[in-house]
């Protein structure tokens, strides 16, 4: 490749990166400006007198509807909902994948196909039946209800992930453990879990992103005290008392997006590795 075409290539890449990063820059810059500066300055200019006033207001003072406590309580709601939902759906998905690959039973293929179908069901379709189910179970308007919903709808994906990973684990490994005297759960915990690191990370990232970013279930099934941060962000942006506080909106949006960004930064490298990992070599 000669210098000219190399230059062209990098120019195109830089442009694409700029295009993707520009909105983030605008958000970051705006969130550190005061309202006056936003009104007078340019949209993409760096803040002249950076202030974290907007951030602290978004976190603990901004109004989301009638409450004016910022995003903090809802952020905590989101954590309380996401962490258990991610862990439970991942562990059950791992058990499902293990059973579907190494303890096949009559109809296990059919069951797997049926589970796969769950990946393609649009969430809007299940809103009403799920509302009735939550009502019948007594989980209405609670974080517990949201956890339940996310576990149920995450299972299709987590099962698929683990099933495809465990298919690559040699059956002889399981047989050897059975001859050694290990049962279903012993084999799972002692043999399979220690080699499931990569796919575990994939599952956690996927589920965390899905559940943290979910708006629909949050807005439909949560009560006013159990709303996740996505719903609160929407309320915060739409609640205005006279002046539209762009800096607070931007800071709130970044706060709401921060955990998923963090998960990607910390565990992102496992994501691709886990998706491409094949058979486990003894």
């Amino acid at each position, binding site marked *: 490749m000669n210098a000219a075409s190399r230059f062209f290539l990098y120019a195109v890449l830089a442009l694409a990166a700029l295009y993707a990063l520009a909105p983030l820059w605008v958000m970051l810059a705006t969130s550190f400006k005061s309202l006056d500066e936003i009104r007078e300055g340019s949209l993409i200019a760096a803040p002249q007198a950076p202030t974290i006033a907007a951030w602290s207001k978004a976190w603990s003072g901004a109004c989301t509807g009638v409450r004016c406590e910022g995003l903090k309580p809802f952020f905590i709601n989101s954590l309380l909902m996401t962490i258990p939902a991610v862990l439970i759906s991942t562990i059950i998905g791992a058990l499902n994948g293990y059973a579907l690959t190494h303890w096949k039973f009559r109809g296990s293929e059919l069951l797997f196909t049926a589970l796969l179908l769950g990946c393609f069901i649009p969430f809007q379709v299940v809103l009403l039946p799920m509302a009735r189910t939550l009502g019948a179970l007594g989980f209405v308007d609670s974080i517990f209800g949201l956890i339940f919903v996310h576990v149920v709808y995450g299972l299709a994906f987590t099962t698929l992930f683990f099933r495809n990973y465990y298919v690559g684990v*040699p059956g*002889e*490994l399981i*047989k*050897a*453990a*059975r*001859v*050694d*005297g*290990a049962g279903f759960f*012993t084999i799972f915990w*002692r*043999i399979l879990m*220690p*080699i499931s690191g990569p796919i575990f990370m994939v599952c956690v990232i996927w589920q965390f992103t899905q559940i943290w970013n979910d708006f629909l279930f949050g807005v439909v099934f949560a009560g006013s005290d159990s709303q996740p941060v996505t719903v609160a962000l929407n309320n915060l942006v739409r609640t205005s008392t006279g002046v539209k506080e762009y800096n607070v909106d931007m800071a709130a949006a970044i706060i709401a997006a921060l955990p998923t960004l963090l998960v990607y930064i910390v565990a992102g490298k496992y994501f691709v590795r886990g998706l491409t990992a094949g058979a*486990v*070599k*003894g």
Partner: protein
Amino acid sequence: MASLGIHNIRKTYGDKAKGVEVLKGINLDIADGEFLILVGGSGCGKSTLLNMIAGLETVTEGEITINGKRVNELPPKDRDIAMVFQSYALYPSMSVRDNIAFGLSLRKVPKAEQDATIARVAKLLQIEALLGRKPAQLSGGQRQRVAMGRALAREPQIFLFDEPLSNLDAKLRVEMRSEIKLLHKRLGITTVYVTHDQIEAMTLGDKIAVMKDGVVQQFGAPNEIYNHPVNTFVAGFMGSPPMNLIPATMQRRGSDFVAVMTVGEGAAQSVALPVDARYTTALSDSQSVLVGLRPEHITDAPRAAAPTVASISVPVELTEVTGADILLTTTLGGVRALARLHPDSLDAIRGHTVSVSIDVSRLVLFDPATGLALTR
């Protein structure tokens, strides 16, 4: 220590009426301390049978007994067996020590006793230096040893081997083969060993069961199977190179019979081999047969010391020098036939024909239609 009985075992996958039957009524009995080989091509059902003995596959029909006690319904862990797998199946996240200790700790063996067992097994298999390593840090041969160590640690009643040597290179395979044989000699544990390699079968087994399409073709001692195969499949499967199967016609000569076969490609000449009197009752004049002859029984003068020889002159089509022997390809009865000659005879077979001696006492006759050996 245990005897093993396999009685009328059938295995059907899927629906019992419509499914695929992979084992069609297997009967095998081995005594305490015997080494049984299950040998056959891929898909013959040998591994399925082994898995059934282990309890890893259900039995569709029939009965498996250990020490005379029915074990069909027992899970693998209660059968007191240990198994070595083709892929070794070492637990990848555990060290060699933990691999060996896994079965012991699940059986709640006290820690001190575990350590003693590990030390004993490691010494026996010379893997003391590897105990701290993970399976990924071991070579193929080392993994093989660890897999055997894991099985040995439990002191099982029956040892099961599922093609344990087929992932090793040729040299290591021969080494490990003798080591398994030695180990069996020393410990005397009843063993069932699955292989597709007929040399492993011959060298290791006290008893061999040759299998094809879910049926045991022949069950007997290695010599019996090698010298008196019951059908053409066994004759062709056991031995390397396999037994020659030469089309011939029987002719009555007085009270005896001779087998007449053509020599060379043009079929211009033919040769008559006297047939042992044992066969006489089973034969009739001008009957077509397949004459089974091992390559080493078609040989040249330096080797043919037996009194029951017939000398013939055969065309030389190809010679392969293996070092210990010369394999000579010729045509008998219109088909390729191999002879095994002394390595010193290379100069003598420069010509187009060579004189060979056939040990007719070793000759086996088969019915060409059914492939079955004619009764002696």
